[in-house]
């Protein structure tokens, strides 16, 4: 039980000190906003989704709904029913076919990818979204104004509007389970009966994903290593995401701050050109004073 030992323990058991650190960090980072993005100090956790092992039982979906107190809609937890992310579905499991090989059909567990550099965080006007240093990207629902700009800027189109609460909602990677020692995995991971979901330190799940892909005979693709600048959710797919009908994100950080500045600067340039043109037009056409002179009585013009 010594502390030294606990640091070397397997990934799903966190040392108490680290746990306390995280516990203390959550509110601080939540308050600091985007400043809190992934500082090197705390180690990042992630989730591995192995679609090759998934049997489509949707226990992860129902566990998620139970933990997050979401509505269950009729029939959506049936195995072959396809559902879509929504304010009430933080995670979905859909049967997807490979476009190049129709026989290859796989259940894909799909949720917020918890990007390393999330576009949604940079978009939210009121800093309601934060990337916690531990990994999860969380929407503060009591702050969200419901503008849905995060949805527009997310490369995966994840945060969905909940019409009842009138805020955008999405998977939180169960950051609120972390303080509960018995529940240190996200609800979905804890519920998976076949080990298709795996939660751990980011480095470890990358190794684990690579190992699993190596062990597999057929082709496989790890989604999340580079997409959107790297995400904290890795998904092992039997084919490329575009062939599986998933939304494809560019392999770079999306919505970078510098890029935003570049675009806005070009807009300002356009605006200044416009103002310049108007000034020129005003200057060239100033010869029309005569007809207006009689109108001038009231205004003394000290300009010109």
């Amino acid at each position, binding site marked *: 039980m010594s502390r030294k030992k606990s640091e070397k323990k397997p990934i799903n058991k966190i040392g108490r000190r680290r746990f306390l650190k995280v516990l203390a960090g959550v509110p601080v980072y939540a308050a600091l906003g*985007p400043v809190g993005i992934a500082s090197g100090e705390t180690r990042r956790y992630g989730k591995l989704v192995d679609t090759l092992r998934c049997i489509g039982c949707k226990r992860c979906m129902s566990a998620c709904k139970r933990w997050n107190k979401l509505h269950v809609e009729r029939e959506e937890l049936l195995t072959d029913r396809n559902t879509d992310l*929504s304010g009430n579905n933080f995670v979905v499991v859909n049967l997807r076919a490979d476009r190049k090989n129709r026989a290859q059909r796989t259940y894909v567990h799909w949720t917020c990818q918890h990007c390393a550099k999330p*576009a949604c965080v*940079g*978009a*939210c*006007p*009121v*800093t*309601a979204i934060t990337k916690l240093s531990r990994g999860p990207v969380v929407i503060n629902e009591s*702050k*969200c*104004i*419901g*503008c*849905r700009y995060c*949805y*527009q*800027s*997310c*490369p995966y*189109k994840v945060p*969905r*509007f909940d*019409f*009842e*609460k*009138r*805020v955008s909602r999405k998977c939180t990677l169960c950051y609120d389970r972390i303080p509960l020692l018995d529940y240190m995995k996200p609800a979905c991971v804890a519920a998976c009966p076949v080990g298709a979901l795996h939660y751990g330190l980011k480095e470890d799940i990358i190794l684990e994903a690579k190992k699993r892909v190596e062990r597999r005979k057929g082709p496989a693709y790890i989604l999340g290593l580079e997409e959107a600048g790297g995400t904290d959710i890795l998904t092992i797919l039997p084919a490329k995401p575009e062939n599986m*009908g998933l*939304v*494809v*994100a560019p392999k770079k950080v999306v*919505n970078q701050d510098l*890029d935003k500045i570049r*675009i*806005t600067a*070009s*807009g300002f340039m*356009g*605006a200044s050109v*416009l*103002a310049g043109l*108007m000034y020129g*037009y*005003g*200057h060239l*056409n*100033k010869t*029309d004073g005569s*007809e*207006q002179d009689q*109108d*001038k*009585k*009231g*205004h*003394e*013009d000290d*300009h010109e």
Partner: protein
Amino acid sequence: MKTTMNESPTLTLNAETHSSKEETPSSQPNHPARKTTIRQAFSTLLADMERSPGFYVWVSFLIAVIFLAGYSLLMSLIYSMEIFEFSLKIPWEMMVSNYIFLVGSSVGLCLVVSLGSVFGLKRYELIGKRGLFLALISIILGLSSIGLHLGHPERGAIYNALTPNLFSAMWYMSTLYPPYIACIAVWYWLLARRDLARTAAESEGLRAKIYNILALEGLKAYAYERMPLQRWESKLNRTIPLQKLGLSLDAENADLSWARVLGTLALISGLIAYTIEGSLFAHTEARPFWYGPLYPIDFFLGAGFCGFSWLMALGILTHKLKREQFSEAYRTLLSEMAEILALLLSAGVLFTAYKMGHGLFEPLKVKTVMLFLNGPFSLNFWIFEIAIGLVLPIPILIYSARKRKTAGIATASIMVLAGYFVKKYDFVVASQVYPVIKEGLPSYFPAIMEIILIGGIIATFLLVYTLGARFLPLKEEGSHRGPVI
């Protein structure tokens, strides 16, 4: 200083006791008098209705539409905001497109008016008041359009101030519009103040009082009565020459050079805010069709369309409906504005051709471009955006400008506005289809409840304008001229 501090409370106290003593006996016999004034007002209203039934029919129609919109809003509160959406995957629809349309109109109007007040083109000062009044109501209604679209508009103001996100275009946008609105409002007031004061002088009773308050006329007398203002003013005058700065409390002596200062401020804040508005879309890399530095510039072109079109359409229609004479200067100005609009529209044609052609060769954009060229939006695109909104108005405008035909100019302006409204809707909605909705949507038409709500907002716009055109100084004439109505 001490003496004044001591004096003023006693003075006000005296005044209060005085007035209360006076009022108590006189309030009772006042009653019948008040009744007659109400009856009188009612009969004047009836007489007025008989004289101009068209006005009342129009106003009642607009009010009916607004009530309908109120119904849809109420239903959205009782049931769910979902009634405004036609697809969960397209969360920005008509309310957002209507918002950028109205805000664009406001900035465009501000641009056109600033040609006169800021850039020194005297003839454009004619349209100053109408333009600024329109700019004011369009930005306010535009912001209410987006406010209704928010899940929690009440939090917007709070957290915008408490936890700003300095890398979010939306934050800048919502922060920059309030100062813009303030500048526009004061600018309009400066231009209209003298007319308001004159109207007050010509009317009597309650009406005179209202106009006096609007013009802040009599403020000086009131302030002199209540406060030791004279002493302050003389002191201030020694340090800052108030009169020379044009800071007069009288409407007649107010100097219009302040309009130039406010105009410049409004222009700058409007330009910045509207650039950021374009950037809001242009930043979202996840929406390839919005992304890129093109849109902030495109937005300005659109603002120009709207500014000129609103001014010409409503200016001409109002003149015709009120059977007013077009002054010669105004006619000339209208022709010039029509020509400029034609020029802008031709630039718009080139820009659209470039945008679509360029998009065809970009793998990320091509699917969205095809939605326009040969997809569910093609009717909107070819008929509304291209034919009605861009191409057809050009010859009409040029012909009418040459022949100085106001009807033609008004028609073309309305066409441009209609085309641009549809264009904004397509711009917002079509870009959201890919990459999320691969199989296509069942409908690309806004939800009926949303149409009703937006109808209500447009109706409010027209209603406020109608009332403004009737009761406020908007007419195209030198701001010093006499009565307005």
